[in-house]
């Protein structure tokens, strides 16, 4: 049970001359600390909890503990609070939360953003915070008017006494409300009375994102700040053997050239001097164990690993035995490359290390981890570090780094030069800097019975682990299996009685990380293209084939039926176009896609239309769900068409957007999103729009060309071969 405390009341006692006031209300889990520095109220605010601050000017500031990376918490969280609070939407302000246990993630126990969990994990807590505050404001007004609280109501930023038609704005009640004890079990609104929740609401951050005012990490400037770039090893795990900085030091504007853990830092008055000086550095690297890493030989190694049994992730029935007796047996292998997150804002961090304090400004998804890492590097206690969460110019997992390398670098440099320092990664640093979606190799066999029903499914996944050797290992490893490697593959919604899935851990060396929809990025592609293959082998329509096997999974079935209906499945298409369908559950949401594609005589692929259906349970901001599904389609399509990081001589070959292309305006298909009305458990929306885009496109390619796509990205040669 959570506890609600009135922070302004605490402050009231502390500053006995309290007059004016503001309401900060915090809903804490009992095991968490009672500190909430950021929410420490000023004299003119009511601070009923850690989430809300009401000013005498009627402003309602919502303190948001999840990072804004484009997925919308800076709008959806205020919507939840405003609804219960009955706030005036025009008075809402948003502030990123400081680092404090009060703001820890409800599931993960640290302050972080990830796993498409923001809205659904904070939903109840924010509703309670809003409702408790509303109740306190009502009590304050009732006391003022000497009437029963039950005869008052809150509406649009005011408390109203209906009988006497008296009203007071929230700001007028700040002082009185600040003296009240927050209710522990505030009365929540009935769903039918929601004013914001479930209604498409425009983002609050758009004005500042269209006039240049929005502040991303890279935009931070602090007095006396220097700018640094770092020369890092061209091979992962390499170390500096020796270096000569004579020429680099001669570049105007250069202040310091120092060796740090991961390489040589060039610190200058500005970026251009730092970058030019870095080009003039002469460094001899000890390239280490991965100097010969090569994508081709690595592929052969993965294929070899796929022939050896792995750690068992799932065993139901007897897949091997059933396969031996199946009427028809099918086998396929799938290959998917490393992928870079390629956030539009390259990685960066500002750090200012002093003797007894450290400030960090950073767009991050891992506040607690980064704060603690900064403290360790600075030789300080975590509470001596103040981390400012900035807007993220894209995250997609890249800013949730277990080793906080991008923060530690900045702290190391600032500490060494005793100045505030902004470390800027160039696009090439970012692209070649690792932390990729792991390369994956899947080997799959399945059998159909005489009626064309699948009876056995046996899958082996080969890929690196995301968590072995990190603090997350103990939470995510399950009986020797990294759950992020097999998620989406070990629990099939389809009624297949004999199922076996195992995982072969590929050797480490390349830093890997969660990448928007994580394991589902490769498992959904394999499962859904292979299901399509089985449908055709069984002589059935791919939609009907899936639907018949979803008897135990009504939510899957409904999104599949919805997407088929909305896409006009089975209806005639313009000449030369094909349709493909795919379905997948991830992050507790259910998504199906239909893609419409054409392939020209020359083998040029064009994706014309993508229709998506999602069941994510009750919605908070449907506008955000549409935006995330549109963005997810582009993210998935970009990977399907272009995404590939490869190695030669230990070095990443791709450098920038010319050889790691992004989907562009002229390639954009029409994306339609349909939200299935649902009263089931709330799920995520940031990632679930990605996984079944690639399989829907690949299945559409098959429909038009008869060619199966079993490796990504989709290569022109595979399409050309399809024309023969």
């Amino acid at each position: 049970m959570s506890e609600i405390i009135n922070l302004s009341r605490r402050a009231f006692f502390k500053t006995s001359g309290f007059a004016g006031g503001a309401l900060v209300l915090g809903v804490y889990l009992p095991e968490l600390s009672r500190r909430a520095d950021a929410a420490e109220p000023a004299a003119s605010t009511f601070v009923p909890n850690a989430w809300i601050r009401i000013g005498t000017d009627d402003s309602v500031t919502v303190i948001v503990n999840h990072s804004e990376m484009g997925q919308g918490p800076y709008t959806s969280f205020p919507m939840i609070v405003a609804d219960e609070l009955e706030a005036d939407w025009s008075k809402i302000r948003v502030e990123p939360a400081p680092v404090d246990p009060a703001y820890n993630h409800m599931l993960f126990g640290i302050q972080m953003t990830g796993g498409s969990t923001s809205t659904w994990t904070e939903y109840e807590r924010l509703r309670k915070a809003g409702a408790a505050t509303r109740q306190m404001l009502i009590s304050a007004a009732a006391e003022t008017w000497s009437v029963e609280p039950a005869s008052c109501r809150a509406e649009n930023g005011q408390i109203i006494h209906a009988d006497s038609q008296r009203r007071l704005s929230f700001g007028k009640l700040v002082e009185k409300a600040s003296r009240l004890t927050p209710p522990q079990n505030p009365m929540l609104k009935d769903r039918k009375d929601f004013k914001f929740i479930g209604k498409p609401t425009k983002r609050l951050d758009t004005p500042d994102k269209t006039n240049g005012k929005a502040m991303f990490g890279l935009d931070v400037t602090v007095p006396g700040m220097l700018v640094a770039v770092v020369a890092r090893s061209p091979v992962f795990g390499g170390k500096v053997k020796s270096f000569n900085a004579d020429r680099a030091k001669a570049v105007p504007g250069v202040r310091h050239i120092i060796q740090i853990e991961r390489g040589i830092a060039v610190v200058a008055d500005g970026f251009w001097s730092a970058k030019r000086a870095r080009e003039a550095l002469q460094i001899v690297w000890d390239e280490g164990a991965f100097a010969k890493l090569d994508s081709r030989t690595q592929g052969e190694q993965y294929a070899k690993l796929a022939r050896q049994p792995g750690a068992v992730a799932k065993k139901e029935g007897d897949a091997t035995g059933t396969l031996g007796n199946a009427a028809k047996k099918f086998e396929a292998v799938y290959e998917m490359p490393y992928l870079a997150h390629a956030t539009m804002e390259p990685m960066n961090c500002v750090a200012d290390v002093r003797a007894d304090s450290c400030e960090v400004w950073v767009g991050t998804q891992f506040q607690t981890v980064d704060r603690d890492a900064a403290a360790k590097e600075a030789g300080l206690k975590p509470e001596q570090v103040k981390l400012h969460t900035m807007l993220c110019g894209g995250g997609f997992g890249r800013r949730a780094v277990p080793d906080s390398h991008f923060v530690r670098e900045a702290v190391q440099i600032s500490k060494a030069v005793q100045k505030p320092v902004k470390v800027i990664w160039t696009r090439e640093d970012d692209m070649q800097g690792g932390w990729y979606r792991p390369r994956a190799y899947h080997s799959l066999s399945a059998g159909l019975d005489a009626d064309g029903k699948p009876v056995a499914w046996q899958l082996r996944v080969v890929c690196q682990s995301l968590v072995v050797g990190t603090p997350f290992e103990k939470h995510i490893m399950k009986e020797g299996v990294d759950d992020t490697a097999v998620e989406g593959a070990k629990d099939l919604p389809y009624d297949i009685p004999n199922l076996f899935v195992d995982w072969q851990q590929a050797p480490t060396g390349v830093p890997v990380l969660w990448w928007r929809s994580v394991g589902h990025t490769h498992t959904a592609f394999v499962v859904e293209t292979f299901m399509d293959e089985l449908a055709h082998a069984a002589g059935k329509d791919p939609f009907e084939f899936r639907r018949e096997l979803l008897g135990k999974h009504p939510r899957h079935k409904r999104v599949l039926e919805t997407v088929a209906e909305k896409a006009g499945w089975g209806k005639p298409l313009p000449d030369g176009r094909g349709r493909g369908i795919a379905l997948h559950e991830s992050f507790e949401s259910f998504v199906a896609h239909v893609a419409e594609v054409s392939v020209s005589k020359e083998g040029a692929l064009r994706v014309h239309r993508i229709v998506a259906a999602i069941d994510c349970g009750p919605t908070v901001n449907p506008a955000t769900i549409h935006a995330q599904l549109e963005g997810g389609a582009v993210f998935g399509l970009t990977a399907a068409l272009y995404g590939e990081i490869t190695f030669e001589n230990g070095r990443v070959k791709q450098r920038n957007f010319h050889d790691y292309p992004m989907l562009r305006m002229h390639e954009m298909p029409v994306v339609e999103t349909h939200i299935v009305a649902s009263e089931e458990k709330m799920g995520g929306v940031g990632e679930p729009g990605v996984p079944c885009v690639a399989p829907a496109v690949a299945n559409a390619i098959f429909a038009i060309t008869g060619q199966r796509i079993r490796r990504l990205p989709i290569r022109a040669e595979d399409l050309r071969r399809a024309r023969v």
Partner: protein
Amino acid sequence: MIKLKVNGEERSVDVTPDTPLLWVLRESLALTGTKFGCGMALCGACTVHLDGEAVRSCVTPMSRAAGKEVTTIEGLSSDVGRVLQQAWIAEDVPQCGYCQSGQIMSAAVLLREKANPSDTDINDAMAGNICRCGTYQRIRRAIHLAAQLKAQGGAK
């Protein structure tokens, strides 16, 4: 010292002539609305107007910008700028928002040249601007809307 006019104001900066305009705007003049994305004119995040033309400031050396008029997102105060910002809000375009300054600066030149751009015009004018969040469909709608608003006499 290199002189130039930025958003209508005369400015002079002490940098080497090879310094890209982007870093002068961001670091010397504190105009951080113009973004760094690639450094190779591949993504469009750094798009500004140089004597009215859309250029990638990350590859525009100060030797080329000297003496010229530069307009950044902060200074996009024309009718075109206002209708674009209004349309971007109406279509709820940005997600992370990092690329959007560049998108709007490219769209502004398009709308000045073509009062009622077709989808093909939009493809041609906007293909140099990457949005990793995938807001292209909304950018397209917003440009069409901005064209309409402009035809109706500008932003309200």
